[in-house]
């Protein structure tokens, strides 16, 4: 088999585009998990909601305003999730809370089909990004490059916030030692509100960004949720750096696997998950949110 065609810049960029989408989603998922110890099964549904809202806003106003408005709206959803579920139930078993988010995922998913129908929809890329540019001799869609930049840019900002600000430090502290941080005077509830809103807003951002890249349909939430969970587990539960690394690995495996053998590509993420958990059960990352 000829492998030379695998290593061209366009494929590399495709892998990065998928990875950047997964990174945005997984980092939000990992943040919420780090702080509340709850796997948010509604994350895929929030992403899907973001995509549908993005579709509506992009049709009425334009894509750029959707990119701003939708994450803000989703942040409100995040606040509802925090006040309605995570905070009142923080003394309950974390599995119970995860199952409740699963219930919310069902509700949001069905709500979306009631409001928008089940037909797949597509959003066209904004005019400025509709063209393609020359990437080392191959034409490459400008929108995907934009997706990569925004995705990794958002994650870098997140990482910088966690690393260099006081509130970011508090988030890291709570993720590692919730009890001790509370004793030291960190307001966990306020922090959790911030983080859950941020996580939901990131899901909304990913949804809007996914619109012109993938098609919008009611199955998009559940399918990406499983990918994200694989990424978060492989990256190490609660670790942002690990999640970014794992998302990139996942993207590459998917894109290159599809070219080598579609059969293998389908199985690769699961095999990756099983191997990582057997070889290194804590995942790529060191410790929790970092």
């Amino acid at each position: 088999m000829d492998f030379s065609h695998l290593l061209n810049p366009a494929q590399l960029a495709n892998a990065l585009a998928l990875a950047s989408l997964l990174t945005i989603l997984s980092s939000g998922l990992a943040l919420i998990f780090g702080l509340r110890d709850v796997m948010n099964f509604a994350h895929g549904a929030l992403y899907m909601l973001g995509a549908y809202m993005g579709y509506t806003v992009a049709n009425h106003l334009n894509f750029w305003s959707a990119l701003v408005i939708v994450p803000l709206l989703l942040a409100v959803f995040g606040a509802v999730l925090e006040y309605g579920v995570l905070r009142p139930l923080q003394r309950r078993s974390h599995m119970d809370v995860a199952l409740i988010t699963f219930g919310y995922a069902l509700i949001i998913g069905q709500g979306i089909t009631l409001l928008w129908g089940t037909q797949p929809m597509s959003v066209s890329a904004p005019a400025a990004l509709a063209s393609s540019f020359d990437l080392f001799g191959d034409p490459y869609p400008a929108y995907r490059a934009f997706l990569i930049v925004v995705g990794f840019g958002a994650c870098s900002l997140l990482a910088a916030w966690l690393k260099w600000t006081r509130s970011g430090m508090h988030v890291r502290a709570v993720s590692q030692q919730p009890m001790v941080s509370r004793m030291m005077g960190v307001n966990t509830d306020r922090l959790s509100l911030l983080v859950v809103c941020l996580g939901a807003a990131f899901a909304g951002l990913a949804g809007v960004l996914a619109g012109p890249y993938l098609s919008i349909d009611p199955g998009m939430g559940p399918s990406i949720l499983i990918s994200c969970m694989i990424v978060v587990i492989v990256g190490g539960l609660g670790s942002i750096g690990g999640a970014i690394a794992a998302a990139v690995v996942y993207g590459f495996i998917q894109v290159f696997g599809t070219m080598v053998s579609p059969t293998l590509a389908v199985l690769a993420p699961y095999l990756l998950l099983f191997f990582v958990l057997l070889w290194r059960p804590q995942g790529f990352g060191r410790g929790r949110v970092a």
Partner: protein
Amino acid sequence: MNASSTIQASGAHLIAPPSKKNITGANVALAAILVAAGAFLPLALSDTFYLTLLVNGVVLGIAALAIGFLAHQCGLIMFGAAGFAGGSSYLFAIAVNQFGWQLMAASAFAVAAATGLSFLVGMLVVRTRPLPFAMMTLALAQMLKEVVSITEARPVTGGDDGLNLSFTGTFFGLTQAELSSPVTFWPVAWLALCGVLCVAWAVDRSRTGTVLRMIKANEERMRFSGFDTYWPRVWAFSLAGLMAAISGLLVGLNAAFVSPELLDFATGGMALVSMLIGGASTVLGPVVGALLYVIGQDQFGTSGHLELLTGVAVVVVIMGFPDGVFGTIRKTLIRTRRREQDQKGEHAAR
């Protein structure tokens, strides 16, 4: 537990044998009569529509019971029960179509192979904490779904279209036509349910069940007390896999058709939702939940609001009734009975 227990190398002898208070001859006879009478239900209930509903509820109930069993005994939620249930349906279908086996041989093969698979998977996953566990089983089911949908596997698995089955031989004397009719299929489903319920009850009351629940409460302490904490959980997982496999086999037998949807997260979600609504704290809870689910599916399935309502039901039940519907009813009954006894006691004292 007394002070001397810390000196013992193993605390294994400290677990009191489970009480056999309720296992009297009369109760066993009553249960046997109920099981036997249940098998003849189609004689009393002539409406095939409701009978179909009941059969679906029972088949779903067995899968829900598998999830509930593992949740109650080990505290592990199996998100991917569809993997073992649908896996068993597919193995059955492949044995019938590809190998051309007789029904009995194919059924035995499907259940045995799916249970073997769950044993192997169990050896890997029971070590993990509940959350990674839930996700790994989910990933397994999703992986199996992708495998059967692969285009290359189309000659064997039928790809996205699924497989239509034509049986040779009989299943305990039932032919294909009889298996697809709810009237004649009912005894099979009913007896399977009773068998699985008996096993779950027996394990629940056995010493193994006690050990499992103690491991759930504090794995580390159990290990320090000299208990093996690994193999009991592997066995419990395999047993749950066996129950799911039985449910999957029943689906294959009854429908004579398999498709990748059987392995879908949504299908596993049905059993999971049933278990959550019924509650895992009792053996019967998941089965009651499955019956409620099937009734709801019949009532609201056509309007398309089923998912919405199941979502609401899951949220309300977990928030308000952590023991599930059946568990809450049982608790209330026990409480009122105790109160009555207390009042009687007071009267006697006066």
